[in-house]
């Protein structure tokens, strides 16, 4: 029996990345998983309302991608973004407080699950209209170049967003003007319940970059080191040469589109979901680290306990946080004070 060869990108990343960071990435994946599981529980208890889109299954993408960033780099995402926010440095308690609609939430309870913002951490949302935030990322990249600064912007969206106009308008401008932005397509195969084969004339999302003469790569989105490898190159290209890249990360969501949607049903089978779970990104990463002698089962369990404890503390923080007060209702509609000004509201 022969041992399967270790892929190049794995040995490259294991050699180039400090051990502490490799272990921390494992912890981040566990935190993302436990946190989202807790969100499902809190949603069932009606502590979390509205739409709540969980990231379970896709952790490798955000964690691999964000592992390549500096603190001053920016992240803009769609609405499946709890984990992106946590990994960008948002306080887990304040994120949970936001999901609970509480005053100490990162967006003061005004945003909720789909609108997590933390300016100090470079977390620019949390946007709820499919494709609507792609031009914003193009705009922050425009600003970086305008200000002659070398921060980069990572823009995350699902594969279903590549058929809306903003995607094409943004890629065109980013390539035309040479902007330091990385567009990361989290291709989890389904736009809600519509499979990519039923929505896109071209299956290979990364190919679309050729229309804009833009660098692109397709990567296994269930392999955190592969993501880190690919995004790391794209970040370098953006930072050094002001060039954008389109990355397609092929991943899979283990949950329904949102908490109110079924995991499987008309659009995918239970067998398909169970089959994909064999590719669990946390398990795969752990196996890579274990094979390299960097972690043990005991360490995994210790990290998992920590992730659960942090999640539990986040819930406690959110529970203790008050609801926003009524006088905050009209706050931040405008930068200057604003009250009910039409008499119909008084």
């Amino acid at each position, binding site marked *: 029996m022969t041992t399967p060869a270790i892929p190049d990108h794995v040995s490259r990343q294991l050699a180039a990345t400090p051990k502490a960071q490799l272990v921390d990435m494992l912890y981040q994946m566990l935190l993302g998983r436990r946190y989202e599981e807790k969100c499902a529980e809190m949603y069932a208890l009606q502590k979390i309302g509205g739409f709540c889109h969980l990231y379970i299954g896709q952790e490798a993408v955000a964690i691999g991608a964000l592992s390549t960033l500096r603190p001053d780099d*920016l992240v*803009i995402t769609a609405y499946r973004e709890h984990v992106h926010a946590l990994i960008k440095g948002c306080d887990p308690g304040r994120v949970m407080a936001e999901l609970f609609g509480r005053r100490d*939430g*990162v*967006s*003061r*309870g*005004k*945003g909720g699950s789909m*609108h997590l*913002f*933390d*300016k100090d951490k470079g977390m*620019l*949302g*949390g946007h*709820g*209209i499919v494709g*609507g*935030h*792609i*031009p*914003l*990322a*193009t*705009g*922050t*990249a*425009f*600003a*970086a170049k*305008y*200000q002659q600064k070398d921060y980069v912007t990572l823009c995350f969206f699902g594969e279903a967003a590549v058929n809306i*106009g*903003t995607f094409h*308008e*943004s890629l*065109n*401008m980013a390539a*035309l003007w040479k902007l330091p932005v990385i567009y990361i397509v989290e291709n989890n195969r389904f736009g809600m319940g519509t499979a990519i084969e039923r929505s896109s004339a071209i299956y290979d999302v990364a190919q679309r970059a050729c229309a804009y003469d833009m660098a692109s790569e397709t990567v296994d989105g269930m392999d955190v080191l592969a993501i880190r490898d690919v995004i790391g190159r794209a970040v370098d290209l953006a930072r050094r040469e002001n060039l954008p890249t389109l990355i397609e990360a092929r991943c899979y969501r283990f949950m329904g589109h949102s908490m109110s949607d079924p995991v499987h049903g008309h659009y995918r089978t239970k067998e398909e979901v169970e089959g994909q779970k064999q590719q669990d990104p946390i398990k795969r990463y752990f196996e890579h680290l274990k094979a390299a002698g960097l972690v043990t089962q005991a360490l995994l369990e210790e990290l998992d306990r920590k992730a659960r404890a942090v999640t539990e503390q986040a819930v406690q923080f959110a529970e203790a946080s008050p609801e926003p007060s009524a006088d905050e209702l009209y*706050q*931040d*509609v*405008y*930068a*200057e004070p*604003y009250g009910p*000004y*039409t*008499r*119909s509201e008084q």
Partner: protein
Amino acid sequence: MALVTYRDALNQALREELRRDPAVFLMGEEVGVYQGAYKVSKGLLQEFGPQRIVDTPITEEGFSGVGVGAAMAGLRPIIEMMTWNFSLVAIDQIVNGAAKLLYMSGGQFKIPIVFRGPGGAAHQLAAQHSQSLEAWYASVPGLKVVAPSTPYDAKGLLKSAIRDDDPVIFMEGETLYGSKGEVPDEEYTIPIGVTDVKRQGTDVTVVAWSKMVTVALKAAETLAADGISCEVIDPRTIRPLDDGPILESVRKTNRCVILEEGWPYAGVGAQIAYQVQQAAFGDLDAPIARVTGLDVPMPYAKNLEHMVMPTPARLVAAVREVLYLD
């Protein structure tokens, strides 16, 4: 004081604010090399260069969002719509982006951006190029909507809009660009949200903005010949609406006619009429009248277009009606 066109007054405002603050830039179709579709940005590329006077592809939603993103990152963009008609493909970025980001982020992201360009009908441009969309944008909390009628107001208000920390929808009158008026030589600004009395009168209050002020002033001249004194009030800002001077005038004249180029249904005039009757019902001696563009897509034929547009004659008739003269 110099006699300056509305176009040049806007150009002066842009130039002065671009000089004043390096975070200010102008982006849009044909703003640079072409010198502006309506020449509002004439000469700016030469003075400020292509980094700050940015020609875009025809991609309104894209570059509107680029502006909003740049504002999130600390810049103060001015986004030119070649006409406001084209903003309808960008409205998601304006309504779901610019207007909401401060609120949704719990006050973290101010969006100091100006969307500006010409609105309203010109001459025989037909249905897709002849719209007055201020009611659409004015209905959105988080946006400010400005529609100046004179070169003086245009310059002073545009400078305030550029310095404002909120998104401002700045609607210029397409047929006003060549109109002339006095503009001071020294620097000045006009605060957003301050109504102006364009003509004093005693018998009836006429509320009008943008190029409808010209229509109102013409009608007022005609009516003056018949001994009827109109007070013409120009809110200049549609949102926030400074209704104090309107109410003050109505309390004096006891009659009110609202003149609006846009459609009647859910128009700005409907909101103003609501506010006037709510606050000054007891002062009104007649129901409030509205004169608006007619409730149809703009037709191309010259005679039909003329029927749609509010005219001094239609305003004269409405004024006589609220005075019970006809």
